[in-house]
């Protein structure tokens, strides 16, 4: 019914094709400009790209997860999160359960990784876990699972590597060009002076324009992917309000993620570099404005891609969903929220649950006084095997 994947693949191939052509063009003119050998330039450009691709392909996930300081969790560490991920895995029809990681960071964000369907992962920050109720968490996780299901992770990392290679080559290309220009070493070939100058000019213009064009293209696709992931997420949960409400909380939070960088930005639910008060759609942004995403989600009358399309059209006066995904089911009814109004006690319990989990994962011992029931969190370097309870004086043993 919702066969987005095929049309996604077409579109992806198109994007990769354009970026690849741009890269080869840069390589050709660099080769012409320096060695009057465009083919050699193309070969070098392709080699650099292949090298970077290999790294990204085999180590990308590990690099991203270790740079962000993510820790893998088991079902026992945080049953709520693990269960929500499993629920969304079932709803999306994903074959294998993604691994679940947590970043100990008060900022609220999440991302998905995994180049193939066999090894995928969903990562959330502890801040997110602490602030979102079950429906909201489900919304965010559904958005991330959609990125996996729609193959966005693979596409964006392929495109990202191409973009990176173009930027890299152009950067070195311009530096070398200026350097060789200033040292007075003019083109040595005689006779073809005119055409050589022309090639130099074209190469220079290309060096400046190619990275910009590649970046704009990349950002446009990245933003589109976010909308599509929102649409799929709404379909999986049958409850767009969950993600909308989560996004609202994310937007209100002012904390920035500690360990994010430009390269990993498109992976996150919201842009980790978002500045306060920047609302307008920005050409150089990996993510659409949050307020707009919320407005679209809240304008949905049902939970199907067709419903998302109508809401999107109402807000943006454009279309976004590929026709193949709209064909079968027109409207799908939403479900009711699962929880009653959230109480302060719920919030407190969630905070406690999250902080206990983080402490436990950092090898803290959590022990309870057998006499009065007071809970103690013992750091891993606590020297004694037991201590006296501060409330009742009972001796408490540490496991």
């Amino acid at each position, binding site marked *: 019914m919702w066969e987005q994947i095929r049309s996604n693949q077409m579109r992806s191939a198109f994007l990769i094709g354009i970026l690849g052509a741009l890269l080869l063009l840069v390589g050709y003119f660099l080769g012409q400009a320096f060695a009057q050998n465009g083919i050699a330039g193309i070969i070098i450009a392709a080699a650099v790209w292949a090298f970077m691709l290999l790294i990204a392909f085999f180590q990308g996930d590990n690099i991203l997860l270790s740079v962000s300081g993510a820790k893998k969790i088991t079902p026992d560490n945080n049953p709520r999160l693990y269960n929500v991920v499993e629920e969304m895995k*079932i709803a999306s029809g994903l074959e294998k359960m993604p691994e679940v990681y947590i970043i100990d960071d008060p900022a609220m964000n999440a991302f998905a990784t995994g180049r193939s369907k066999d090894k995928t992962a969903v990562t959330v920050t502890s801040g997110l876990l602490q602030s979102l109720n079950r429906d909201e968490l489900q919304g965010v996780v559904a958005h991330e699972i959609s990125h996996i299901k729609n193959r966005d992770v693979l596409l964006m990392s392929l495109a990202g590597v191409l973009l990176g290679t173009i930027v890299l080559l152009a950067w070195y290309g311009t530096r070398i060009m200026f350097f060789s220009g200033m040292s007075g070493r003019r083109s040595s070939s005689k006779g073809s002076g005119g055409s050589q100058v022309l090639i130099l000019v074209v190469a220079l213009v290309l060096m400046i324009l190619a990275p910009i064009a590649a970046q704009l293209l990349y950002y446009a696709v990245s933003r589109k992917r976010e909308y599509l992931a929102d649409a799929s997420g709404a379909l999986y949960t049958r409850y767009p309000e969950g993600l909308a409400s989560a996004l609202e909380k994310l937007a209100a939070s002012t904390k920035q993620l500690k360990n994010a960088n430009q390269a990993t930005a498109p992976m996150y639910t919201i842009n980790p570099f978002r500045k306060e008060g920047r609302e307008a759609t920005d050409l150089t942004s990996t993510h659409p404005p949050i307020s707009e995403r919320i407005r679209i989600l809240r304008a949905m009358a049902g939970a199907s891609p067709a419903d998302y399309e109508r809401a999107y059209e109402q807000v943006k006066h454009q279309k976004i969903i590929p026709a193949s995904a709209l064909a079968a089911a027109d409207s799908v009814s939403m479900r009711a929220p699962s929880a009653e109004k959230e109480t302060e006690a719920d919030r407190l319990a969630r905070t406690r649950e999250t902080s206990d989990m983080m402490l436990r994962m950092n090898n803290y011992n959590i022990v309870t006084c057998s006499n009065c029931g007071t809970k103690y969190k013992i750091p891993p370097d606590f020297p004694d095997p037991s201590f006296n309870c501060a409330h009742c004086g009972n001796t408490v043993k540490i496991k």
Partner: protein
Amino acid sequence: MIALWIVLGILALLIIIYIAIYNGLVGLRNQVKNAWAQIDVQLKRRFDLIPNLVETVKGYMEHERGTLEAVTKARALAEKVQTAGAAERAKAEGELGSALARLLAVAEAYPNLKANENFLALQEQLTSTENKISFSRQFYNDTVLRYNNQTQMFPSNIIAGMMNFKAGEFFETAAPAEREAPKVSFQQPK
């Protein structure tokens, strides 16, 4: 001679189309089976959780014998119709679901029980299992719809008719209210 080649070419094309459609139908039918198995996994899990839950709750809820019995009975009934068709099973499982929801709602009135860590863990597992049942059902129904569309739409309906691809049965719960979120409501029932 040329006419022969053209006829042969058309024949080959038809065979290729036939194979493609047939394989597509088989693939979809297997997906339906697989999605059904996924529901089974979750229903089985709910079965397994119930004795544990009843055991934990029993001591605290002396006055709720009726509610507990309803759960046990519904579980026995659902277990009996396990091999029956989708419609009958859906009904039995729906009843078990609402009996469980009632039990968890009543449990709310027992603060001692709510302080029991074992119960809290079970409650999370049960809530999530209810969600998983409903999501696997949702995915199953989506898959059945896709499969049924394929068996009814031209031209695949011809092959579906020839090779006896029967329409899949939806997993619908009896009451429309049941179709909403698997809800573990924490309010006293009226």
